[in-house]
């Protein structure tokens, strides 16, 4: 297994720059997810690592060795394509053996590797079949198997779950996690689905607009989004945003909401830009029903998820937000309620979308 370093890499398609001066270090054995909206350049970045796309500037190193001038086959990485890209006319066995045969591996070694991978992926009974005779989920396993037999320096996955139905997607997700725990292989996993990124990755690279928006563990990304983009992209339901004006109170930001309510936070005032309009970002789980709460509103929609309930509440200033209640919520549409916001979970975003949080030690 090898580390992967991406050093100030840029990529243009004609006049359009899709990756701009991007740098990133992926540790050996790490499972990292590239997360971002469709069209933000995730696939392009992955293909540049694989060697399927040239780079316009910068360097890519795998295991310390510079590879950006090498053809794909010489880089020692394996890729699992979004549409699997199995060889339709070859048997499953031959699909998996093809790469090893091309490097002149000995027949017993090929056989041993293929059998072993087939066993791990539970596709042994399928080895004599052709891809056309397999279901989507089975093809997916074969595609993973084809990568596995090569014992690559890194695995590259491009949205591998997007063609599976919902139930199979969840199951395959768990299997990928298990597989990574077994193999400890360096893995890059491209997805636009924040749940996949959150559940699978050790670290998430959130990409937006040609650049890396934030890199962090799933809980860092979720709990301390560096920007409004990240905050909106990660978490379901999406974070609530409310315009606020900021006043000082003992060095801590005191927020005045448009509806008149006030919220004392632990966010250091000195960190904040002065005189700019700010937005409060707050997740549903940080907003609770509380008869003493300072934020009155009217319930419009009640969404029951079983273990919890999402309440869509209209505030006095006509803005809406989503609050979370227990599974057996007694709220009903039309109810007047009072909400309480947990100030420790408040985020502030400035006009540029930069995020501010209370320092971890300030919250006790």
């Amino acid at each position, binding site marked *: 297994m090898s580390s992967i370093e991406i050093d100030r890499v840029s990529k243009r398609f004609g006049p359009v720059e899709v990756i701009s001066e991007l740098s990133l270090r992926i540790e050996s054995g790490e499972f990292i997810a590239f997360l971002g909206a469709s069209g933000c350049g995730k696939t392009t970045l992955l293909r540049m690592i*694989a*060697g*399927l796309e040239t780079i316009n500037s910068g360097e890519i190193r795998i295991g310390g060795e510079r590879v950006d001038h090498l*053809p*794909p*086959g*010489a880089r020692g*990485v*394996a*890729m699992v*394509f979004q*549409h699997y*890209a*199995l*060889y*339709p*006319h070859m048997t499953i066995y031959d699909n998996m053996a*093809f*790469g090893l045969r*091309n*490097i002149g591996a000995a027949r017993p070694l090929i056989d041993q590797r293929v059998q072993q991978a087939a066993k791990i992926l539970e596709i042994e009974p399928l080895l004599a079949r052709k891809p056309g005779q397999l279901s989507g989920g089975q093809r997916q396993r074969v595609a993973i198997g*084809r990568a596995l037999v*090569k014992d690559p320096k890194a695995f590259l996955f491009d949205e591998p779950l997007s063609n599976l139905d919902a139930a199979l997607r969840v199951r395959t997700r768990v299997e990928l996690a298990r597989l990574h725990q077994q193999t400890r292989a360096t893995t890059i996993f491209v997805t636009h689905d924040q749940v996949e990124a959150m559940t699978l990755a050790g670290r998430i690279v959130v990409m937006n607009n040609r650049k890396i928006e934030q890199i962090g563990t799933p809980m860092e990304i979720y709990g301390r989004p560096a920007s409004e983009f990240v905050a909106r992209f990660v978490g379901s339901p999406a974070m609530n945003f409310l315009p606020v004006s900021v006043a000082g109170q003992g060095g801590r930001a005191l927020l005045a909401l448009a509806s008149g309510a006030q919220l004392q936070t632990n966010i250091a005032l000195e960190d904040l830009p002065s005189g700019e309009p700010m937005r409060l970002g707050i997740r549903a789980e940080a907003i609770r029903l509380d008869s003493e709460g300072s934020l009155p509103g009217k319930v419009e929609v009640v969404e029951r998820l079983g273990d919890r309930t999402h309440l869509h509440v209209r505030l006095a200033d006509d803005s809406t937000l989503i609050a979370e209640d227990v599974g057996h919520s007694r709220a009903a549409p039309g109810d007047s309620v009072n909400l309480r916001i947990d100030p420790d979970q408040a985020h502030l975003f400035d006009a540029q979308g930069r995020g501010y949080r209370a320092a971890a030690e300030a919250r006790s």
Partner: protein
Amino acid sequence: MAHAQKIVGRRAGDRVILGAVIFLAFLWVVPVLWVLILSFKANSELMLSTGSAFRLPYTLKNYADILASSGVFRWFFNSVVVASLNTLATLILASLAGYGFARTEFPFKNVIFVLVLLGLAIPEQAVIIARHQMFTDWKMHNTYLALILPGLSNAFGVFLMTQYFRSIPMDIDEAAMLDNASRFKIFWRVLLPLTIPAQATLGIFTFLACWNDYLWPLISATKPEMFTLTVGIASTQTNFAQSEGLGFLMAQAVFAGLPVFIVYLFFQRYIIQAVAGAAIR
């Protein structure tokens, strides 16, 4: 209820279509059967009345006469050689050109592709005199090469194979690249096997067209030993074939069509796909 009615309605529609198809097939098969029956009748009997076709006796004499005519086996052999080599060479060239247009970049690619397509619009008759002159200058008439070469500039073949290669997802090439396959190996081991349906379509059409070709072999091959079957058989017909040798004429038609019929039997599935336009995919 509504659903059941719809099915019944569809069945009725199917029956109308089936009836029409049977009718058309009947229209088509009547002359073929007529040719077949006449070919088994003695010429002298047919001279009196073609109505005798439905009466005994029948005879194999016309076929015996064909086989007895000195050149026929040679012509048959010539046709097999010319049609087979032409087909093989066309498949090789069209596959290579199709791969080139679909998967590589080179200067003026699009211009050249358009030029190839323009070739589709030029009828053979428009260039055949110039071509004849060219082969005369090269002193190549009455050779197999002269019969084969002109067919190799097969614009339709290049177009078909280009489209077919384009329909294969680039992912497949890329997966093979990551599997350390060379460009040749990707062409030969990964992509070419996937084009077999298109190869079959192109191969059948090319073979049939070449087998049935008459004009070019007629003017290029002037020595009887270089005749193809179509030209050779036509050369044995007398001026009064229609009136004096009708049975013989019909037997010749059956004989010349036989290989085509056999090819059809073997490749029926591909031909039907090709005609239905389903071969590409």
